């Protein structure tokens, strides 16, 4: 990593390219459009990620520069977390007051199992479904599945598929649905702020950014709740997966596929 890190700063073409992307994205500015009662926010960061992906396929960006961008994401997320820290600090008493909600909503990750597992089984997926739906498939969860089932297992293929989806499309997806759901459903924007902390820096940034776009007057509270929840997800996510989510997914999988098996037999 340290060898890789060397000399990234010297690649001024990469950084100038990013600077131009940023200026272009900010210049386009925030736009929003209505779908029924919900509002979809199009924020500069959304254009930035799409322009970035597109440039990778042009001669402007080389394979090497794409690799060099990765440490900069990490450092950018560091600055983001520093910013979140100084927003949380002054409101620390309020955050502590919201502690029970922050802790319990971590169990909301189990929502993936309840919603996504039936969909996966309905679509005819087999044991891949366990890897796919036991968690949001960020790095710690991928590690857990590989450790338990092995790299070439169906579970391993499943978790990798969702990991790739999340890496490429996660931030865009969260940025689009966060503001939309918060304006569409009767749930409070602050509840969605807590839900934004799913353990991935860029997805959290996109989701909370979209909420701020839709509810600018709640900016500081949204940042504080999302940031605190993301930190909790980072530190507890693996244990929730290991002790609750994965055993529950396996149990539900057996239960649901067994029923299906009986049905099929019944039809025969």
């Amino acid at each position, binding site marked *: 990593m340290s060898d890789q890190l*060397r000399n990234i*700063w010297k690649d001024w073409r990469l*950084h100038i390219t990013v600077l131009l992307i*940023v*200026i272009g994205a*900010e210049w386009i*500015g925030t736009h929003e459009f209505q779908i029924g009662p919900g509002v979809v926010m199009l924020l500069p960061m959304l254009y*930035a*990620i799409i*322009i970035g*992906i597109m*440039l*990778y396929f042009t001669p402007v960006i080389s394979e090497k520069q*794409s690799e060099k*961008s990765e440490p*900069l*994401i990490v*450092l*950018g997320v*560091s*600055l*983001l*977390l*520093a*910013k*979140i820290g*100084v927003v*949380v*600090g002054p409101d620390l008493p309020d955050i502590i*007051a*919201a502690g029970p*909600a922050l802790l319990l*909503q971590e169990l*909301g*990750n189990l*929502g*993936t199992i309840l*919603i*996504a597992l039936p*969909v996966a089984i309905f679509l005819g997926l087999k044991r891949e479904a366990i890897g796919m*739906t036991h968690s*949001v498939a960020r790095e710690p969860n991928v590690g857990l599945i590989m450790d338990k089932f092995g790299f070439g297992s169906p579970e391993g293929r499943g978790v990798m598929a*969702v990991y790739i*989806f999340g*890496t*490429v*499309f996660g931030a865009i*997806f*969260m940025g689009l649905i966060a503001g939309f*759901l918060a304006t569409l459903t009767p*749930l*409070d924007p602050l*509840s969605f702020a*807590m*839900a934004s902390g*799913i353990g991935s*820096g*860029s997805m959290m*940034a996109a989701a909370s950014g979209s909420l*701020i776009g839709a509810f600018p007057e709640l900016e500081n509270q949204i940042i504080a709740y999302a940031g605190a929840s993301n930190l909790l997800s980072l530190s507890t996510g693996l244990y929730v997966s290991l002790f609750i989510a994965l055993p529950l997914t396996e149990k539900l999988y057996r239960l649901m596929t067994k029923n299906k098996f009986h049905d099929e037999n019944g039809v025969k």
Partner: protein
Amino acid sequence: MLKNIQEWTLLLSIFGIVTLFGNWFGYDITPLSALPGMIVLILISLLGLVTQKILPFKLPSVAYIAIYGILISMPWTPSSEYIVAWTTEVELLALTTPILAYAGIAIGRSWTDFMKLGWKTIVVASFVLLGTFLGSAIIAEIVLRMQGII
């Protein structure tokens, strides 16, 4: 270690300069008035990165960084009002745009893998993200209401 600190400082500074421009074009805050806040954020990040290298615990550096950020901006910390006033000039959204610009460039390499995913995977993965987001929001809503916070 010293070499690491040097590299981090340079890269954080580059990232900071890009952010100051975005902060200027997008949010009308001049680079000069946002500079003190940006320096504070860079110092907090450096401190967290160094702490992670030194301490034996397996915590991610972002955890230390967030904790340092909280510590220096708490109401009980002397002169925290300066820290808060300076860093307010650096918009959160001005930080997220360059993160996602670099992320987009890095993601390009995964695009071919992404295109190989079948439509079933894409449907299930969307429900995975939707499920965790809605699940957490519903639980947060119930507990926040019970506590009378919202």
